[in-house]
């Protein structure tokens, strides 16, 4: 190969790389279109919503109509209660279980570990039918607590905590033990502070899951006042058959999406860092 062709291929490689980059930017744009469009439709006045090329000043009219038409405040409250309630219980449970799996050599550990893993794969949302009959028997259908109970144990959270604890040197625990700390103190003072990044990434995943959870609340709730946000949004959107109310549906969709997107944007750096280092591989 002489120097001329070498230079030639180098140039072609550069062109190829540039084309590839261009393609990726195009994909990025295509990927972002749904979000951009829903934001645009949510903030533009209703009469212009159907015309893609119409321009107008942003308005909050759509949001006012949506909030007047459906109890989104109540839905918000329910979802917040469910999401935070589940997460708090999960954090306690996964810390205890994760520690046991990471640090204790005990009889039955393999069996229990497989049991936990099977929950990771099957997940309560597949078992809507038997869980629903169980909740009816317990008298918990159409209760927020009934919606929450199946998610208190989290195999994924347990695995994340287990992986993270395994990266922490045992010397810390032993030093605390020498100082006379008992197990609750060791967990609280030694491990919990070191687990905070893992809690953050698990918290984001768990919150996103509960915020989005739909099918289970759908079968569990009868009354409007027990509906979480996802269900409320679906019912709201379904009440319009045609495209005439797009601006309203967009505004409602935007309302539902904003909190999680905001959380993601605010905690983006920490979330990425902990996601990359906390053993979620």
């Amino acid at each position, binding site marked *: 190969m002489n120097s001329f062709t070498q230079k030639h291929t180098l140039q072609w*490689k550069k062109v190829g790389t540039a084309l590839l980059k261009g393609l990726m930017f195009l994909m990025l744009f295509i990927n972002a279109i749904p979000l951009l469009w829903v934001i645009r439709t949510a903030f533009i006045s209703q009469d212009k919503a159907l015309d893609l090329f119409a321009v107008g000043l942003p308005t909050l009219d759509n949001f006012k109509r949506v909030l007047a038409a459906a109890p989104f405040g109540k839905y918000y409250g329910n979802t917040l209660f469910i999401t935070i309630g589940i997460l708090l219980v999960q954090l306690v449970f996964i810390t205890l279980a994760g520690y046991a799996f990471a640090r204790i050599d005990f009889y039955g550990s393999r069996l229990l570990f497989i049991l936990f893993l099977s929950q990771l794969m099957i997940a309560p949302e597949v078992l809507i039918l038997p869980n629903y009959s169980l909740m009816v028997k317990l008298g918990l259908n159409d209760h927020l607590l009934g919606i929450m109970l199946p998610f208190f144990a989290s195999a994924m959270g347990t695995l994340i905590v287990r992986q993270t604890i395994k990266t922490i040197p045992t010397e810390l625990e032993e030093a605390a033990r020498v100082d006379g700390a008992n197990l609750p103190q060791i967990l609280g003072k030694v491990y919990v502070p070191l687990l905070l990044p893992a809690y953050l990434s698990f918290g984001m995943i768990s919150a996103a899951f509960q915020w989005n959870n739909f099918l289970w609340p759908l079968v569990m709730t009868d009354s409007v006042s027990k509906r979480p946000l996802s269900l409320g949004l679906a019912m709201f959107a379904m009440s319009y058959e045609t495209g005439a109310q797009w601006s309203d549906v967009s505004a409602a969709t935007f309302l539902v999406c904003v909190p999680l997107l905001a959380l993601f944007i605010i905690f983006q750096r920490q979330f990425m860092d902990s996601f990359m280092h906390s053993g979620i*591989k």
Partner: protein
Amino acid sequence: MDIAMKIPQKRVQGQDWTLQREEYRVGLKKAIRGKWKKTLIAWLLLSPSLIFLTVFTIYPIAQSFINSLYKDNLSTLKPVFQGFTNYANLLKDKAFLECFWNNLLVAVVTVPCSIGLAVAFAVFEKGIKRGKFLVRLGFIYPTFIPMVAAANIWMFIYTPIYGLLGYINPNWRFLADGKTAIWAVMAMLIWKQAGYIMLFYMSGLTGISKEMYEAAKIDGAGSFQLFRLITWPLLAPTTTYVFIIALTNAYKMVDHLYIMTKGGPGNATNVLLFYIYQTGFDYWDTGKASAITVVLVGLLLIITCIKFFHDDRKAYYNETP
């Protein structure tokens, strides 16, 4: 901290053998008692999770299996035992079979597509110097949007005439046509899933050292070769993990159907979990819905077993998995 490590193993020459044996016996007893004590603590720590896991995952699976052996629908006052009739009926049920094959199609198409896009996004994101944040946001945001909300948005896209695609061709009715509907739904699923998988690949990419790329570059490797020879092989563990996650998700994601198609037209976009919902909560055929639940759980367990098999095989080659 194995029991065996704590007890004297070898007979020491020149010492009293009975004394050594006694020492061994006491040591073993102590070690076992210690392990039982630890077992108690471990089970106590695990008990909260374990109780909820048993009540809401293990027990419901058993309950589904038992219910699936009964005829239990609106025509029966009390459940009637009928053996495996529900399963035999499923094999003759056209709707069920359609759901089964649709689900398989969804898995076969969306999993590789999402993974491919996710890798491309992650590699692209790593190479970007400015505007990383916007690139991340643009790719990952679908993860944080509720499925129901995503379905609403995609309805706007697919609606004929007024929808976004209507600007290209007003006559496209992808969701109303039995042949194209499932592809339209899958396009949305890929869009929703790729960003989530990208998170895992970004995590995997941080584990690959820069020196490796630099060395390959000195040897004259192009960017495509770098990807083929370094990035992709070293991402293999991530790919395995993500493959399992995406595969199980293909069987769990159904919320969008409630908004977009209700499983229609006909059963063209219906999948197993949504069919369980329809059978159990629209037609109140508990026996049949339980049988489908058992089938779905079985499928998910098979996927899990693939993972275990893979992990086991890997363990032979690599001490630390």
